[in-house]
């Protein structure tokens, strides 16, 4: 039968009114009879009113019951924000932990520096000759990892060996879990990690019940005894010293209702609490409470539930909480911010001890546990200074995520996204850019335009060329000022950093119309050609012409005239093809100005193209996202390293060898004075009217590009060597050091004895000789004509 309470109410009311209006037969009047008559009338009216109220109440209760069930039966579908993680970090014998800033990393990962021994996951302690770490448990995309204690023995700052403390077993390599670098919230900014009852220690459950609702298992949603007790306690204290709400009522207040304080809301809360208790078990209610209760702030986001609170305050999973930690969290429920150990450690300790005393008095913890917990020092993880690290990188990742998933899914379904970011190097990169640009503004203030509206900007990207992994990405000097990501979004002229692609075309016998070698000679002498119907004349930056120069010197010193001439000789269409094969997708026109980088491209694109030089002709596709995992652990998306040979290794090797000379006598020689002494190859870039300063430099396993300029293309009067190189040097010195790794030699490169003056095959008449590299098959075909 379908219930229509409203219709029933109307019918009853109508009936009552009819009954009351009916004419009664005249009777003899007597006082007793009148009183009885009045009494009967009263009973009728009262009964009627009760029936009406009863029906109204039933209808209201029914409505609330449906509301509560709807909300509750959405199976506690809280919105769980998605989280973005950095890459893992491997530790192994031979690694320099000072260079890798290991202690700072442990702090960022939320490990607690206990000062002495380590006892539980998340502890670490520095020792005179090493570090002890109790590794966190961590759910990797395809593997659950259970943490264990390790000792890392170091010699100086270099790892000597690693061993498990529990078993004594030596470990060859050890993995530190990825760092949480960003959380993707919805508008509510609620952060939580769901837990089940089984995942929470008994001490936590006992503490909560003891402190918040001692009669939880004895009442049915509301506790009149508790209300009365709280009433008298508050009267005695002349303030609100106790609350009378049960856990169920608190859950209802937080989960179902708004924060309005009114009598009507209190009534609603009580009725819903009764309904919930009727329809759900105590366990279900307690579990919902564990995940709903507010327990503090992490910056602008609110932390709800014991799962996330355990991470915030103790950098642990909830199941790892000690009795003392449970007591503190339970004690904080009443006033999370007042009792926050980050805010007031003493107040937090006192509150914890209060709860522990209650537990001990109730014999819920024995003497040993009690004494251990009450004397346990409050050791907290270092509070994260910034809630979002690597903001430009995160934006870049989010853009890719949005192409795969809607925002509602990202902010609500608790995805875990694993990236390629190396957080240690990212922080170095951010410092390099912000300090670098500020230093330029100070040291070269006279060169920069006066009273320029926008600030001088910088950008940096670091790629591991052998994998394509983007390890650092800084899109500007300050994200708070401008979120425009100059690495990815800006389109700038590359200028001279495009030149290596011209020379690559020239060195490759299968690409250029004319094959040259680094020792060939070319004329750096002014010329004019028609381009786009207009005369075009290249000029060198030093405004000079250098006559016949070796191709090596032309690239090393970045001569515009020689390069433009070479590009025309080898075929501009061939140069375009080379650029395309390297992965440059920009709009390229086969005109002479192409040789000087007169087109627009993003720093990411040009840096990715340069991976072919570091990899001897193999391009690695840039990668920032590796894994996307759903809340239940299933892999939603996986991206892998993609590489493809695009060029013959021989010509690439020749270009790289010349680019090495850029550091040794070329346009980046000043890097040596700045303190960079490693083996690297690179190219400076300066665009027309000094609008852009570029530097791209690489070792076999690191490729870094830096850029400096104004967003509005204003002239800044700085070359690549002056503007961009110092940032590059800062980054490489801190992140990489002086790498001595040589570039691998391909099979098809030989050294041929030549006369250095002519660049041709040496004869006995030549006074000097050198051995110079050539691609096999393009050795000199002429003897030296000069001697």
């Amino acid at each position, binding site marked *: 039968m379908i219930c229509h309470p409203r219709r029933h109410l109307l019918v009853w009311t109508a009936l009552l009114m009819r009954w009351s209006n009916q004419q009664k037969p005249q009777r003899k009047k007597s006082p007793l009879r009148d009183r009885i008559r009045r009494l009967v009338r009263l009973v009728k009216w009262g009964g009627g009113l009760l029936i009406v109220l009863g029906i109204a109440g039933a209808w209201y209760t029914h409505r609330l019951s449906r509301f509560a069930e709807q909300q509750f039966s959405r199976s506690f579908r809280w919105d769980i924000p998605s989280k973005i993680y950095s*890459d*893992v970090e*491997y530790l*192994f*014998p*031979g*690694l320099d932990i000072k260079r890798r800033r290991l202690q700072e990393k442990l702090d960022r990962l939320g490990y607690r520096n206990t000062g002495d021994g380590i006892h539980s996951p998340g502890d670490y302690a520095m020792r005179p000759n090493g570090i002890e770490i109790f590794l966190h448990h961590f759910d990797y*995309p*395809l*593997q659950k990892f259970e943490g264990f204690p390790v000792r890392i023995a170091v010699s100086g700052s270099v790892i000597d060996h690693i061993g498990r403390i529990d078993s004594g077993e030596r470990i*060859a*390599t050890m993995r530190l879990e990825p760092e949480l670098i960003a959380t993707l919230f919805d508008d509510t900014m609620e952060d939580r990690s769901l837990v089940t009852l089984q995942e929470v220690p008994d001490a936590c459950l006992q503490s909560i019940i003891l402190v918040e609702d001692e009669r939880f298992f004895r009442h049915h949603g509301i506790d009149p005894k508790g209300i009365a007790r709280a009433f008298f306690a508050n009267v005695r204290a002349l303030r609100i010293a106790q609350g009378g709400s049960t856990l169920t009522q608190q859950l209802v207040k937080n989960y179902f209702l708004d924060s309005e304080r009114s009598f009507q809301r209190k009534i609603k809360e009580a009725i819903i609490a009764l309904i919930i208790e009727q329809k759900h078990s105590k366990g279900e209610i307690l579990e919902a409470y564990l995940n709903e209760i507010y327990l503090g702030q992490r910056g602008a986001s609110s932390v709800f539930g014991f799962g996330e609170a355990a991470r915030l305050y103790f950098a642990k999973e909830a199941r790892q909480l000690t009795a003392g930690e449970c007591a503190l969290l339970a004690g904080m429920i009443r006033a999370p911010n007042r009792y926050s150990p980050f805010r007031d450690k003493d107040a937090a300790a006192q509150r914890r001890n209060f709860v522990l005393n209650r537990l001990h008095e109730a014999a819920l913890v024995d003497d040993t546990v009690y004494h251990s917990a009450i004397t346990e020092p409050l050791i907290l993880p270092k509070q994260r200074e910034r809630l979002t690290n690597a903001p430009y990188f995160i934006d870049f990742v989010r853009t890719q995520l949005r192409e795969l998933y809607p925002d509602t899914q990202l902010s609500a379904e608790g995805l875990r996204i694993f990236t390629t970011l190396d957080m240690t190097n990212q922080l170095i990169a951010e410092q390099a850019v912000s300090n670098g640009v500020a230093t330029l503004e100070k040291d070269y203030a006279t060169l920069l335009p006066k009273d320029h509206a926008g600030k001088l900007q910088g950008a940096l990207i670091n790629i*591991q*060329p*052998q*994998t394509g*992994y983007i390890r650092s990405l800084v899109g500007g000097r300050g994200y708070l000022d401008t979120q425009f990501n100059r690495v990815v979004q800006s389109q700038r002229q590359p200028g001279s950093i495009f030149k290596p692609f011209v020379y690559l075309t020239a060195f490759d016998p299968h690409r250029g119309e004319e094959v040259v070698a680094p020792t060939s000679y070319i004329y750096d002498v002014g010329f004019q050609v028609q381009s786009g119907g207009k005369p075009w004349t290249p000029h060198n930056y030093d405004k000079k012409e250098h006559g016949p120069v070796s191709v090596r010197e032309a690239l090393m010193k970045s001569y515009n005239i020689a390069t433009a001439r070479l590009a025309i000789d080898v075929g501009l269409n061939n140069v375009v093809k080379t650029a395309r094969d390297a992965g440059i997708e920009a709009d390229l026109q086969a005109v002479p100005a192409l040789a000087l980088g007169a087109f627009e491209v993003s720093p990411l694109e040009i840096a990715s193209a340069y991976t072919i030089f570091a*990899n*001897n*002709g*193999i391009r690695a596709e840039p990668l920032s996202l*590796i*894994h996307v995992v759903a809340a239940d652990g299933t*892999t939603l998306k*996986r991206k*892998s*390293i*993609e*590489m*493809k*040979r695009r060029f013959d*290794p021989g010509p690439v090797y020749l270009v790289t060898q010349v680019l090495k000379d850029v550091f040794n006598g070329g346009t980046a020689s000043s890097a040596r004075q700045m303190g960079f002494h490693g083996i690297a190859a690179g190219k400076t870039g300066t665009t027309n009217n000094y609008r852009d300063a570029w530097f791209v430099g690489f070792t*076999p*396993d690191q490729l870094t590009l830096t850029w400096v300029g104004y967003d509005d293309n204003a002239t800044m009067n700085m070359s690549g060597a002056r503007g961009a190189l110092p940032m590059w040097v800062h980054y490489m010195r801190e992140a990489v050091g002086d790498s001595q*790794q*040589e570039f*691998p*030699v*391909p*099979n098809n*490169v*030989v*050294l*041929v*004895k030549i006369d250095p003056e002519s660049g041709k*095959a*040496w004869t*006995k008449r030549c006074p000097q000789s050198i*051995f110079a*590299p050539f691609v096999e098959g393009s*050795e*000199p*075909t*002429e*003897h030296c004509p000069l001697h």
Partner: protein
Amino acid sequence: MDMKHVGISALIGLLLFPSCSWYERTAGKMRKKEGGTTYTKQVPGEKGPVKLEVQKLEGTNLATIQSPQRAASMRVVDQGRGELSRGQLDAALQTFQEAVTLDGSNGVAYYYLARAHYQLGHHEQAMGLLERAEALLGKNAGWELTIEALREMIRNEADGTNPGAT
């Protein structure tokens, strides 16, 4: 000039003999020089054949270098090989990828990464990674054959002539 002077001249000539350009040109022998083996080669030129003195570049054999990164990377490769043998292809692929990031010049890691991709049916990716493995390991005869064998299997599978090869 008496015989004594002739004798002294001859002695001096003999001492200087190894550095004589004439000797170098006519000896036609392979000689070890710093940086590689030197040999002569003749190439056709516009005005006739051109004789060149050529040295093979002996770079570092990346397959055999010893470094902490290489040692760590190889241990991770071993872990991945275990996963591969147990059929845990996704896990193996992830592990080999980590091995490569640990040491980007470890050709063995690239080879196994290519292998994992091949077993997952990602032929194009496998081929690309094999190119990298070959660039790093190609100087070692054993690996040359191994790489070529895998390449052949990928080609066959891509052509549909060898399905399900492991």
